[in-house]
């Protein structure tokens, strides 16, 4: 019998994850012990400080790794290398601005149900609302999700990856159901997300099982060495790899695993949608990159067909369906599907610059996404009495917004043209790099399709700009119908940070490019 050897644990390398998860646990205890009045403030401070501290820790680890080279952590379950740390940093930046939007209480109310367990529309719910109750569990839940996401890009064995997947998903399932308004839609979204998420977890687990059966290991490095040893083709290996990739593609919302995206994005509270759209995609793509670049190269020729088909479908379906949407959130949801397709180009390229280009694209996309959804939370409807109610999400309600609220409209335009990939925004440089990597990897037919899809995608982004600036507003000056609420300031900060980031990434991307350029190789 083998002697048990306790694993060496490099606590410093784990510090970003430990800070976030530790403060999430503290957040649960805050829920238990701190009186209701002080709870919200405490939670906001904890979350913001936690994410900020984790970001500092990641920066510190970056310096260490630059000096001492990448290492395997916790008996090889995690890898601390440049791509992982960079993905974590990008994730934390987006989570930070996302948290600001989540914490904001524009028009005096946050975006979440006052009592999530109440039946929608019941007297109890109205009472809870009147009493000013708040489901401050949102913050520890978000922190748990961030914790899982932090592990995701660093995970170097399939079981760790699976656990991280669940840790990041479960809080999101719950958060998706907490919208203050349109409760039923929100609960439906939550249920759908949970069921389809569980479904994809099953795929993922099946894939792990097959790969374990094939190689006798769940670790990426051992899988990678087992793959070239195969003579001919092994159905078990191929099926296992495909199933694991399917599980990850579900999280990034690639076609045909995208069906949850529009419904969940629409139903979830808008700040959560922004957080989820940005951060889940970052984490999942970082993990997908590691899996594909470390394990799959030996299988390149067999998997290319499947990945190409998925990338093409994702770009086309996302773009085409976004064109016909009339709801802002659904439009952005389909646009995020299309972006997943563009990002897949960098994954398929299988060249070193693919890693760095995808990471840059994720940062540009993440900032624009959080900013755009942050702005969605501010544009509201009014009822007959002039009270501010839910978000004005129908496209027509945005007509003429540019005239009444030029700054907001200009920021939104900025995010849209970044999505569209027009120069002087981060989205352009991102597209440039990803397409470049794909051409380098020989996938030029994909680039041609991507270019055509980008041109078509510009149509629906531009349509919103047309609505905001060129269309006469529906209401009159006295009763505009759509109104923009004042924020507590947090959303404004988040949006401004995202806008500045988007412009800087487009105009002076040099420093960030230097960072991503050093993240071109995964540690085996």
């Amino acid at each position, binding site marked *: 019998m083998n002697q048990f050897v306790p694993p060496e644990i490099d606590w410093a390398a784990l510090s970003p994850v430990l800070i976030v998860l530790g403060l999430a646990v503290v957040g649960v205890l805050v829920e238990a012990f701190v009186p209701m009045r002080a709870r919200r403030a405490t939670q906001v401070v904890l979350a913001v400080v936690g994410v900020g501290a984790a970001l500092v820790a990641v920066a510190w680890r970056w310096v260490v790794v630059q000096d001492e080279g990448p290492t395997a952590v916790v008996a090889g379950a995690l890898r601390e290398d440049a791509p992982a740390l960079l993905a974590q940093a990008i994730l934390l930046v987006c989570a930070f601005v996302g948290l600001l939007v989540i914490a904001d209480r524009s028009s005096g109310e946050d975006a979440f149900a006052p009592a999530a367990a109440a039946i929608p529309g019941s007297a109890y719910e109205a009472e809870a609302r009147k009493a000013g109750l708040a489901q401050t569990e949102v913050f520890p839940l978000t922190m748990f999700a961030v914790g899982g996401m932090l592990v995701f890009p660093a995970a170097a064995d399939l079981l760790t990856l699976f656990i991280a997947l669940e840790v990041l998903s479960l809080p999101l399932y719950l958060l998706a159901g907490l919208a203050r308004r349109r409760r039923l839609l929100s609960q439906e979204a939550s249920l759908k997300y949970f069921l389809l998420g569980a479904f994809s977890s099953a795929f993922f687990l099946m894939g792990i099982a097959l790969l374990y059966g094939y190689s006798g290991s769940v670790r990426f490095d051992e899988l990678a060495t087992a793959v070239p040893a195969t003579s001919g083709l092994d159905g078990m290996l191929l099926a296992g790899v495909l199933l694991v990739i399917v599980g990850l593609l579900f999280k990034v919302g690639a076609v045909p695993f995208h069906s949850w995206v529009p419904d969940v994005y629409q139903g979830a509270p808008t700040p959560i949608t922004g957080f989820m759209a940005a951060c889940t995609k970052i984490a999942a793509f970082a993990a997908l990159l590691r899996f594909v670049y470390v394990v799959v190269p030996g299988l390149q020729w067999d998997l290319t067909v499947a990945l190409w088909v998925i990338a093409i479908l994702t770009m086309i379906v996302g773009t085409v369906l976004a064109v016909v949407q009339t709801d802002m959130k659904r439009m952005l949801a389909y646009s995020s599907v299309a972006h997943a397709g563009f990002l897949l180009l960098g994954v398929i390229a299988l060249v070193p610059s693919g890693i760095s280009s995808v990471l840059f694209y994720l940062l540009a996309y993440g900032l624009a996404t959080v900013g755009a959804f942050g702005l969605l939370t501010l544009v509201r409807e009014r009822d007959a009495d002039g009270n501010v109610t839910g978000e004005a999400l129908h496209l027509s309600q945005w007509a003429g917004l540019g005239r009444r609220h030029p700054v907001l409209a200009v920021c939104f335009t900025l995010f849209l043209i970044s999505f*569209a990939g027009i120069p002087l925004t981060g989205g352009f440089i991102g597209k440039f790099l990803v397409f470049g990597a794909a051409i380098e990897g020989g996938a030029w037919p994909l680039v041609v399709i991507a270019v055509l899809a980008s041109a078509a995608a*510009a149509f629906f982004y531009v349509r919103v700009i047309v609505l905001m600036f060129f269309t006469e507003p529906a209401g009159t000056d006295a009763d505009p119908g759509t109104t923009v609420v004042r924020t507590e300031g947090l959303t404004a900060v988040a949006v401004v940070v995202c806008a500045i980031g988007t412009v800087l990434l487009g105009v002076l991307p*040099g420093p960030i*490019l230097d960072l991503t350029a050093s993240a071109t190789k995964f540690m085996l």
Partner: protein
Amino acid sequence: MPTQFADLPWLTILIVVPTVVAALIWLVKPLRRAARPIGLATSVLVLIGVALMAGAFETADAAEVQFTQTVDWISAIGASYAVGVDGMGLTLVALAALLVPVVLIAGWNEVTLPSGIAADRAEDSLAYRRAGFVSLVLVLESLMIAIFAAQDLFLFYVIFEAMLIPVYFLIGVYGGPNRRGAALKFLLYSLAGGLVMLAGVIAVYFQTDGGPGTYLLANLGDIASDNPTLQMWLFLSFFIAFAVKAPMFPVHTWLPDAAAQATPGTSTLLVGVLDKVGTFGMIAICLPLFPGAAATAAPVIIVLAIISIIYGGLVAIGQNDLMRMIAFSSVSHFGFIVMGVFVGTQTAMVGAMLYMVAHGVTIAALFLISGFLTQRGGSQDMRTYSGMQRVTRVLAGTWLFAGLASLALPGLSGFVPEYLVLIGSFEAHWAYGAFAVIGVVLSALYILLAYQRVFTGPVPEAGAPVELTGEALDVPDRAGLKDLTGREKWAIVPLALVVLFLGLYPAPVLELLSGVADQFAAILGSAS
């Protein structure tokens, strides 16, 4: 000139100043009221700056890129901020700098309030809208100068795409009743062309060694020369984008809509300067980077250019909308320019370059004067006008002057370049010249017919309905229309002077251009 003077980063200053002023006007509330004078002063300053720069330009070395400034921008992808102008760049920068103040003066009161604004906010809203217009024009001026000065392919592409945004807003916010459709059509056409070019820009990178400075035009030359098929694809990816911009048959259909819906000032900048980016790109990028492919494709392109010349002229004759007529006449003129670029003789090339400047000035005069008329008359339909030369004498006279310059009357700006392009084409092949001459006849027809319809004949009586096909319009009071005001005259004077100057004494400009033309014509000549 003292050397320090020439060493200043002229181009960067000229690029930055208008943008900064534009941002100030738009963001700082107190400045909004004075947006128009501030904008005009800025554009005049820029014009003076360009004039000083032209003074310091070494004409003897006009083929060399001067006033260069190169800074590493995004070293990871080999992009630099590199600006500089040769003789051609300088003349086009000067054209842009001349037209902006003219447009601002001509469009002083062009921006009005839309309906539905409460009276108490009207004044603020109007100031805001005007400030927006001036800001967009200034931003556009920066970008126009930058694109003609760009010496880096990546920078060129970035500006090429970024330019769409101010133009899009200029058409979409300040245009006529169908402005939204026109703006969208413009944007989608240009964006599609631009994205195709993006694929080309990326692909060019992989044909080089990479590293900082990869995209400098000076370091790029004859891309993929050992692989003609690849070079042809790359050439096409750039050429299509430029052809959309130019606009050439068959991708010209966005222009008439945009020109008819935009304000006359916007149309002036759009057709007068921006579309020149297309032909400028064909010369400065397509020829040196893909000489072999350009030479191979030249016959096809020339055929398309001849179709543009004849088709544009014929369709212009059939137009009832004054602005659309001018737009189609431009399609015809751009045919001449493209032909001059690709026939491969030095004479035609220098003619094409001069044509760009001359066309920019005459088309500006035509658009602006027509704009003065249509704003007075409240309609762009030529059928609702008649006998205007008795009512608005100066307006009719200046329009005729601009029209004659456009149809290449000797002594006016259009003559020399058209003559040079035709001579150069005959040198290359008699058939090219023979077909192109048809364009000259057509241009006389559409200009003079339009003049006849609008300015001669009896003045219609107020209230009398005009028979239009299918619809009858009540003609407003045509006899009471005012002639050009002092401000409007001042806007036209500089244009008229340049038209005369280019017609009577083009030597200084030709001197600037001939060296550059030699260089580019030689590229095409040696490749074919």
